[in-house]
């Protein structure tokens, strides 16, 4: 209870910092800063989405990059068809993600534990191959977007700053939505199921329906991140849903502290900045990143999950 004002303060602080960032970029005359920050926003949205099911629902999805791809390809496919409006891109992404999450979630949720991890991974790989074989959209190589999404028919997002603020608005909106969900009746059932599924059944809840609903909500949210990423890079390819990317999303959530929505945003920021920084040090930054990951998991007392677990 006492935590709530603190969290609201932390959120306000974090989002204010994000809002001021373009000013700093202008002051430093460093445009690349905005590009990185926009990527951070997109991944923060995806990490937030993942945290909703991983942190609150106890579902370790190792295939969330699929939704990045679904969102990104929604932009590519609609743009090709002459539909450029951002709102419609988002709508299409969310609908496609909902269908994919509903079908794969319904099957994955019949299982538990390592089965669930492997199956979500496998389904993401299926989506990956689906887009690889879409030769009309460049197959393996992907496709370059002619332009970014439009707003009210205007090419407003061509400005990096405008795209950045759009991303920030989406992030803040989805964050508030996610916070509301975790505190709602639905959120209580979801969290209770993570804590003790048998107990929840013994008071009259069927965990499956709630978990599946959460899975679908999370997928839809993550697809928004895909729409953002496609616009940021003006390029879409199956690499968006490489399983490494799914892994990185899990890393972000855990870095920030699972079951702590603001933490997911912080985790995405930390992970991407760490990547950027290590990449400056060496071309083979993945070795260092992997090493850090392994060491942190091994040598924090209860493992990474315990190390970063929200202290009550």
């Amino acid at each position, binding site marked *: 209870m006492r935590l709530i004002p603190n969290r609201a303060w932390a959120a306000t602080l974090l989002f204010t910092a994000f809002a001021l960032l373009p000013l700093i970029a202008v002051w430093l005359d460093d445009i690349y800063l905005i590009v990185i920050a926009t990527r951070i926003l997109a991944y923060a949205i995806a990490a937030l989405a993942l945290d909703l099911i991983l942190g609150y629902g106890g579902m370790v999805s190792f295939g969330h990059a699929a939704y990045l791809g679904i969102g990104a390809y929604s932009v590519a496919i609609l743009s090709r068809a002459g539909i450029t409006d951002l709102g419609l891109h988002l709508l299409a992404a969310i609908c496609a993600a909902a269908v994919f999450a509903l079908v794969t979630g319904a099957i994955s949720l019949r299982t538990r534990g390592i089965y669930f991890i492997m199956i979500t991974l496998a389904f993401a790989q299926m989506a990956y191959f689906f887009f690889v074989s879409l030769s009309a959209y460049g197959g393996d190589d992907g496709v370059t977007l002619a332009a970014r999404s439009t707003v009210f028919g205007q090419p407003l997002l061509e400005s990096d700053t405008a795209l950045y603020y759009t991303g920030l608005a989406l992030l803040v909106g989805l964050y508030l939505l996610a916070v509301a969900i975790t505190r*709602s009746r639905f959120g209580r059932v979801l969290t209770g199921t993570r804590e003790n599924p048998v107990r929840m059944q013994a008071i009259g809840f069927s965990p499956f329906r709630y978990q599946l609903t959460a899975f679908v909500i999370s997928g839809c949210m993550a697809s928004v991140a895909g729409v953002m990423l496609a616009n940021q890079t003006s390029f879409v390819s199956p690499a968006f849903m490489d399983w490494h990317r799914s892994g990185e999303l899990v890393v972000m959530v855990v870095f920030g502290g699972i079951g702590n929505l603001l933490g997911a945003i912080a985790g995405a920021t930390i992970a991407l900045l760490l990547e950027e920084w290590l990449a400056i040090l060496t071309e083979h930054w993945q070795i260092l990143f992997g090493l850090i990951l392994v060491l942190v998991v091994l040598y924090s007392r209860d493992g990474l999950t315990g190390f970063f677990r929200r202290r009550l």
Partner: protein
Amino acid sequence: MSLLEVRNLRKSYGALKVTDDLDLTVDEGELHAIIGPNGAGKTTLISQLAGQAGSDGGSVRFAGTEMMGMPMHRRVRAGMSRSFQITSILPGFSVLENVAAAVQARSGSSFRFFAPVSKEQALNDAALAVLARVGIADRAFFRAGSLSHGEKRQLELAIALATRPRLLLLDEPLAGTSGQEADRLVEVMRGLKRDVTLVLIEHDMDAVFALADRISVLVYGRIIATGRPEQIRDDARVRTAYLGEEAGEGS
């Protein structure tokens, strides 16, 4: 009138027949105790009745409806709740939330995503009332995982009660409680007898003989005797099979 009718209920774990063609009838309004030695299959029976464990065959009719094949959460909504011998709570939730979740399950849809549930006064009030009834209202805002063992047993009962069952299946509610806590729980159960039908599994014979309207004795998956407490006390088969000295001491 009978509320629960169990016929030819069966379950095996491999070669072990844990529930062996079991028949049981529980009347509306009674407190029906089931006693039996360790490993007799009492917990398994409760799990089968509640729908948590599957059955190999037989019939479970509750208020005239066949329950066989119905999952646990639907049986709960039909009015049949259980408590667990091994405490099963939501350790990270507050005590109040544990009970409020059970109230929530029976009042309105839980597919509500926006309004904060902690501000739903109706849920909290109902939960507090149940907590007061079992005597741990003062712990309402504690983390459930931090309660003492006895308090967790009280919470366990509170959660089951909060589902407002017509039939309550209690699996050793007194297990591991101190004398004072046990007395309290016995009083709670005595109070419950007025408005809930109870199936009580308990090793504490003082409590069983003080509370039960009828007692069934379960040995190796079969009910070997059913009757009023004094009949059970005097039943030779029961004495040899199970009660032995305890009955002698009790009388």
